[in-house]
């Protein structure tokens, strides 16, 4: 187990370093003076000179990078030009909203995709299977912002069942919060459900071919016991990995969903920052999400190795 953990750490660290170099480069190496970019619409030469000093912009590039990295490691991602708030504070303010949206959408996606995937695999080439495949491909192909707009048109404008937009914190009004989050979560979960369903179906088909499943059936176990107790557990493993890998996609989706439903989360923060030319916020959000993604996938891998002793023994599962 330990060699596996170390191996994962040794691959995660260089990746993290490259991520910081890339985030740094996006800002520094692109055309245009970074001091002007950081200053936003502020054109006062004194302010620009101050920024140049503060961020070591007159120094050679490697010195600039390490100065910046030192700040980042101390949790200082800079300040928003608009609100003067520290970027870290802004991120942690908006994060819970997006996390709630993401968790709800994962819940919806899992609740839909696992049963549909299992049924599609067990009843391969049946009508239900074709319907499931059609659902999955549609889920992959539908732009989630359009799905959001269509749902608002039907559910909110035409039927008047749910509010079209806005956000109420769960702690203040739980019911109102759920009423406003259910539609965005459904929209965000559709793409994920499609991916998970396809994976669930194919890994279930793979597992159902295995010898131990045939043995279980030969022993006379009832079909659904074989499927649910013997096959599902093993078939779920790749689905969980895919779920980890889809978290980035979920965040991308959240950017759009939050825009459609006017939810004040992470995605809206970054889009607003782009339009306000609030570059420190954009950079902070990009760095934070990439780091979080690497850490989450690292933890998923470790959890995975704990659950599956074959991986930890070989130590080089790829």
């Amino acid at each position: 187990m330990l060699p596996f953990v170390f191996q994962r750490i040794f691959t995660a660290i260089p990746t993290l370093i490259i991520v910081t170099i890339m985030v740094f480069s996006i800002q520094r190496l692109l055309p245009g003076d970074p001091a002007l970019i950081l200053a936003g619409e502020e054109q006062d030469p004194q302010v620009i000179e101050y920024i140049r000093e503060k961020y070591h912009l007159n120094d050679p590039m490697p010195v600039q990078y390490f100065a910046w990295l030192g700040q980042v490691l101390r949790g200082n991602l800079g300040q928003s030009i608009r609100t003067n708030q520290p970027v870290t504070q802004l991120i942690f303010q908006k994060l819970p909203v997006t996390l709630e949206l993401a968790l709800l959408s994962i819940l919806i996606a899992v609740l839909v995709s696992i049963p549909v995937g299992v049924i599609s695999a067990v009843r391969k080439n049946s009508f239900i299977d074709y319907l499931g495949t059609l659902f999955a491909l549609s889920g992959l192909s539908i732009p989630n912002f359009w799905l959001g707009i269509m749902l608002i048109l039907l559910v909110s404008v035409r039927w008047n069942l749910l509010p079209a937009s806005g956000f109420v914190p769960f702690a203040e009004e739980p019911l109102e919060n759920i009423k406003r989050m259910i539609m965005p979560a459904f929209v965000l979960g559709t793409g994920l459900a499609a991916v998970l369903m396809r994976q669930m179906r194919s890994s279930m088909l793979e597992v159902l071919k295995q010898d131990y499943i045939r043995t279980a059936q030969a022993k006379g176990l009832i079909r659904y016991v074989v499927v649910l107790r013997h096959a599902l557990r093993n078939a779920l493993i790749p689905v969980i990995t895919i779920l980890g890998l889809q978290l980035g996609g979920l965040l991308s989706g959240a950017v759009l969903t939050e825009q459609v439903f006017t939810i004040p989360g992470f995605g809206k923060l970054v889009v607003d920052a782009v339009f306000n030319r609030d570059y420190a916020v954009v950079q902070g959000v990009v760095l934070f999400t990439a780091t979080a993604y690497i850490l989450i996938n690292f933890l998923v891998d470790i959890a995975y190795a704990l659950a599956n002793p074959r991986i930890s023994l070989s130590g080089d599962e790829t």
Partner: protein
Amino acid sequence: MSLELGRKQRLFKLKNRALRRFLSRPIALIAGIIILLFVVIAVFAPQLAPFDPAKPDFVSVRKPPSDTYVLGTDENGRDILSRVIFGARASLVAGVISVFIAVLFGVPLGLVSGYYGGFLDEVIMRFTDALLAFPFLILAVALAAALGPSLTNAMIAIGIASAPAFIRLTRGQVLGVKAEEFVQAARASGASDLRIIFLYILPNSFAPILVQATVTIAGAIIAESSLSFLGLGVQPPTPSWGGMLNVAKNFMNQAPWMAIWPGLSIFITVLAFNLFGDGLRDAFDPRD
């Protein structure tokens, strides 16, 4: 000579069988026809569109579908049908060019990484992992923010963000093909690295790269429309499906027709590319 002949025969057989299998799948064929239709619409947009897609007509603002305006008009009185027809251009260009960028970066890096291995492989793979760690749209948004919003920059951002898939895929293919006997034989007969890569490895990795490219076009079309929806892609008044939806969301009560057609166009086009990609994958899959 016999090695060369064997290589060509092998590829010919593979392509022939794949083509036969592909043609026996009606859904993939229909998807192919839809893609063809989409390309024709994009190319011949000026001939097909009944009105100028960018010219405002303030007498007919937000008119519902009628005999004159089949799909209605938008907030500036522009014909939605004409804008949907012209919008196909942005999607086609974005889909094809960003995938071209991704292939141009991804395939050579994957080839080098898989073929030479060692430290170079390690560096390229960590770079790929790092690129994969950026949520695609957030990376694209950051690049669009730094470079300025435009279709060109959106395509660069989408191309860069899609490259890791090609790096990994090509590397995996190379690792598989490298061990095959015909590659070993070519190496034993003194073929150079470049010759082996271009004549033996690349053609044998072609099928999965083609499948990935088709599916990536689907993703790129959604990505372009997403960026345009956020206002970071195609800039008005040039029509794009995402941009049209961006405006349409402000008029959902007054003019719901504005939102239906651009979205439906994205959906159908992307679905066609996904179905086509699935069909290609099945046709090339040696396991069936």
